[in-house]
């Protein structure tokens, strides 16, 4: 049984003033196995983020259905799903500790539990020395780590990441990728990562879904075959370039199409 199952998922944005309706996504079929690391790549504006929003239950599918742990996702984000966005989603009025504790407190966790969970997350994400700092005092990479930690403490079984390292430099991205792999191994969560970086997708994922230009559909799903204990040094593997090249071959024409439309 799939951990996450999408059947004929389509998203059409209704017409607005001066613009007709926009068919953004689908139909898309996808099955994610429990504990799998799945990456999605595609041209700009192909509906990658829309796909994530629909899986999370942030927006409904116009047609088709999404099931998480065999339950229909409808109306709201189901318990057990965590989302990390590309934009800085830290709460500027809370310090790092309270940012991470936010979801636990909302869920009614006791003070002892909050202290233990947040303490572990601070340690795990290398934020221990910054517990009392405010987001404004942190770098972009550290703020993103706070967001990941805030998601992590809720022990999600499915983590959706929407280009979480998009605003970071290449070196920081590689290091954050390592941290993400470590988090994935230790939590056993299923991860769906949206990214526009082909290297990042190839390095991190068990499978990479390649999407077409809008309306986004999966052109192919490529298995990387990496061992579970991998890290960023996998970029030196002889297969790495071959896999990335295969993804780019699929994407090139779609990206030109997307550019032409823009």
């Amino acid at each position: 049984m799939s951990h996450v199952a999408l059947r004929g998922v389509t998203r059409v944005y209704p017409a607005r003033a001066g613009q007709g309706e926009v068919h953004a996504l689908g139909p898309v079929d996808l099955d994610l196995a429990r504990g799998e690391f799945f990456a999605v790549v595609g041209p700009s504006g192909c509906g990658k983020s829309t796909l994530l929003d629909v899986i999370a239950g942030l927006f409904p599918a116009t047609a088709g259905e999404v099931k998480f742990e065999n339950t229909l996702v409808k109306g709201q984000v189901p318990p057990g799903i965590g989302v990390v966005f590309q934009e800085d989603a830290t709460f500027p009025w809370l310090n790092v500790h309270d940012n991470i504790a936010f979801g636990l407190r909302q869920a009614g966790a006791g003070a002892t539990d909050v202290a233990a969970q947040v303490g572990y997350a601070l340690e795990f994400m290398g934020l221990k020395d910054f517990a009392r700092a405010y987001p404004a005092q942190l770098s972009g990479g550290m703020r993103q780590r706070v967001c990941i930690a805030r998601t992590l403490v809720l022990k999600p079984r499915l983590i959706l990441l929407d280009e979480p390292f998009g605003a970071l430099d290449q070196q920081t991205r590689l290091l954050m990728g390592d941290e993400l792999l470590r988090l994935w191994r230790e939590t056993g969560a299923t991860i769906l990562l949206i990214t526009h970086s082909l290297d990042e997708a190839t390095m991190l994922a068990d499978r990479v879904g390649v999407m077409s230009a809008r309306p986004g559909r999966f052109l192919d799903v490529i298995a990387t075959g990496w061992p579970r204990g991998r890290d960023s040094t996998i970029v030196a593997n002889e297969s790495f370039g071959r896999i990335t090249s295969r993804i780019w071959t699929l994407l090139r024409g779609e990206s030109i199409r997307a550019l032409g439309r823009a």
Partner: protein
Amino acid sequence: MSKTGLARLGVLLFLLLLLETLCRLGVIPSFTVIAPSAMAESLARILASGRFAADIGATLTNVGIAIAASSVAGVVFGTTLHGFAAARRVLDPLFATYYAVPMYAFYPLLIVIFGLGDLPQVAIGFLLAVMAVVINTLNGLDRVPAVLAKTARVHRLGPLRTALQVRLPCAAPYVFTGFKLAVAYSFIGVIGAEFITSSRGIGYEISFAYNNFDNAVMYAMILFILVLVIAVNMSLHVWEKRLLARRRRA
């Protein structure tokens, strides 16, 4: 104290000394303005005697009620309205022209509605202050990044908890500006209204002293209001700076 602060204090002291000198030399006659030292002396005497304690108490109570009521009503109304885009579109032009309305013109109507007690003064203070809070609350809520609203949904917060735990804290610097204006407008509204028909309060006592050529009392009470309003605003300013310091990039 910073160089700017010292310069500011220097300018203030220079103006006070200038006024003191001009008054003492008779360039400015005492039936027009009394010397600042005489104002301070008169104020100290008044405060020590407790002569106007009831008036000061009444004014501060009415101002406090106007501030509290306008702050609560402004935030509640602003937050509710923010959720109704169509209603907002209808009301926005009215908000823009709100301060073109001379509120004191409604004083007779307010007396008819609320009677001759303190409520008309409070109502004027409230009416002047509330729109500043509404407008600033809306302004702040407009600037809450969409990703934070999405994050609230990921945490499965309902509309009320999203407003209280995410939207309003995020908009706090703007809401705080609204509160600061509410404090200023409440003082203006209440004390201004006391000038018109009230039978007690600081505004009434200033008006009474003016009508009786009692410059010692009139300027002492004006000085009292000035010191009070400046002290309140400076405290709010310090508080606001602390609030903003957390959000400013290092």
